[in-house]
């Protein structure tokens, strides 16, 4: 048997988690059902927490353990649970409607991935060389989540896209730069939570006005209507 320990050098685990992150972002892009979207988001949160923990072990920074547990509880458990509850209360049904068909969206996704990878090297100038790839992956995940927000119609999927973007940013911040100040993290997490709460209130109002969460109804809110 080969020695197991040197297989699991921490940097390679981090790269593995980075690839998993990108895989999940691509799966989010290709997925149709709302429930699966929420599950994938939960998995993304767990991956994020694991990678933060790895970075904590790598750099020895105690505060990163706190942020890892925060991420796990918030992004891996609480927010998906809240979304699930929202889904049930709003009684949203059916597949997610896409403004473009799945094949074209996936092809656009590939183009964005190429773009992000090409940007990675020049963008990551002063960072340690081991993390160039991870910056590229984080950027690709961010762009894919953004694309997902653009090509969806139902409001819930847009929220999921927004949260995925947030996850990708977090991943880039922790893994590519190997740590960031806890204050900044707490600030960002608080922003995300507040935005989420506001959006939840917003959705109730939308549904009451239009009896549907389809965003194209928002187009009716124009001056010359």
């Amino acid at each position, binding site marked *: *048997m*080969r020695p197991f320990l040197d*297989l*699991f*050098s921490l940097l*390679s*685990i981090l*790269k*593995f988690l*980075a*690839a*998993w992150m*990108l*895989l999940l972002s*691509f799966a989010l892009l*290709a997925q149709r059902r709302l429930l699966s979207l929420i599950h994938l988001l939960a998995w993304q949160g767990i991956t994020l927490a694991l990678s933060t923990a790895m970075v904590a072990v790598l750099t020895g920074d105690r505060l990163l353990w706190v942020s890892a547990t925060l991420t796990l509880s918030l992004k891996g458990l609480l927010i998906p649970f809240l979304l699930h509850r929202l889904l049930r209360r709003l009684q949203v049904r059916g597949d997610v409607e896409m403004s473009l068909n*799945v*094949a074209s969206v*996936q092809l656009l*996704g*590939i183009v964005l*991935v*190429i773009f992000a*990878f*090409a940007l*990675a090297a020049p963008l990551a100038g002063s960072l340690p060389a081991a993390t*160039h*790839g991870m910056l*590229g*992956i984080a950027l690709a995940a961010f762009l894919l989540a953004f694309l997902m927000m653009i090509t969806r119609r139902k409001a819930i999927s847009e929220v999921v896209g927004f949260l995925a973007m947030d996850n990708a940013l977090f991943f880039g911040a922790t893994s590519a730069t190997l740590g960031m100040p806890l204050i900044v993290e707490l600030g960002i997490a608080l922003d995300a939570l507040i935005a989420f709460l506001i959006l939840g209130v917003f959705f109730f109002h939308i549904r009451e006005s239009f009896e549907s969460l389809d965003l194209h109804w928002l187009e009716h809110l124009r001056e010359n209507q």
Partner: protein
Amino acid sequence: MQTLQVLVALAIAPLFSAWLQMLRALLQNRRPAGLGQGYRDLRRLFHKEAFLPEDSSWLFRFSPYILFGTKVMASTLVPILAVDLPLAPAADVIALVGLLAVARIFQVLAAMDTGTPFASLGAHREMLVSALAEPALLSAFFIASLLAGSTSLSTIVLHAQEGLFSLHPSMVFAAAAFFLVLLVENSRIPVDNPATHLELTMIHEAMLLEYSGRHLALLEWGAQLKLLLYVTIGIALFFPWGIADQFAPMAILLAGLALLIKLFLAAPILALVETLLAKKRLFRVPEFAATAFLFGVIGLLTHFMLGS
């Protein structure tokens, strides 16, 4: 030597399928049929009389043998028990994919030979799905061979045993693509229901509708062998520890034990996937295969552009 590996593969294939069926039954609250069911089915089929449709030709009659022969040949190329295979210089991963393609094409041709509507439905669906799944499989193999520096399966597995193979980001995508292709090529849910009786939803089963007796037995055994081959290729690429380096008896025994353990653990994953997912509509299946292909492409891009 080589024949030992083939015989082991042939013997284990029905056992693995029966174990998979048992797990699915247990998860779905049905009574399982027992581990020997695969063998019992094959024995029953072999002893039954085989019929040929009136207008069919030699293609129909000899396809089961051709299919079985190619799958046996494929099992000599995959490192199931040992890496040091004598036939390794004859064929590499691309040739292995080509060999599986030969099997598939002869099955499709035999189905079209019968001239029935359901068989030709199954035939064109199979060609459509494989036209998208084969590139995905090839791109997954490409990623593995780029990392190992060779397209010979033995060298790839040797390389995988030595180090950080599975943790490369591109291998993650290769694994995802390979898993999806496994589901597609072996007609598992969510692509095709291996236990369905509705002809209009069949892909793989539709091509077997006219076969009976020993021909059907060969085809069923061949399908079980194909599933086993795919699972062992996945194990060899991503979890290769335990495969013997050369043909020493002790190493072979250890490798056999490791194989049994890995197969025992692999079946629950497959059974879970099959139970938790629903079969997709036919027009969504190409999307599924296309997603696998795109995973493969991203993996290739990750390798080429990020250098890992």
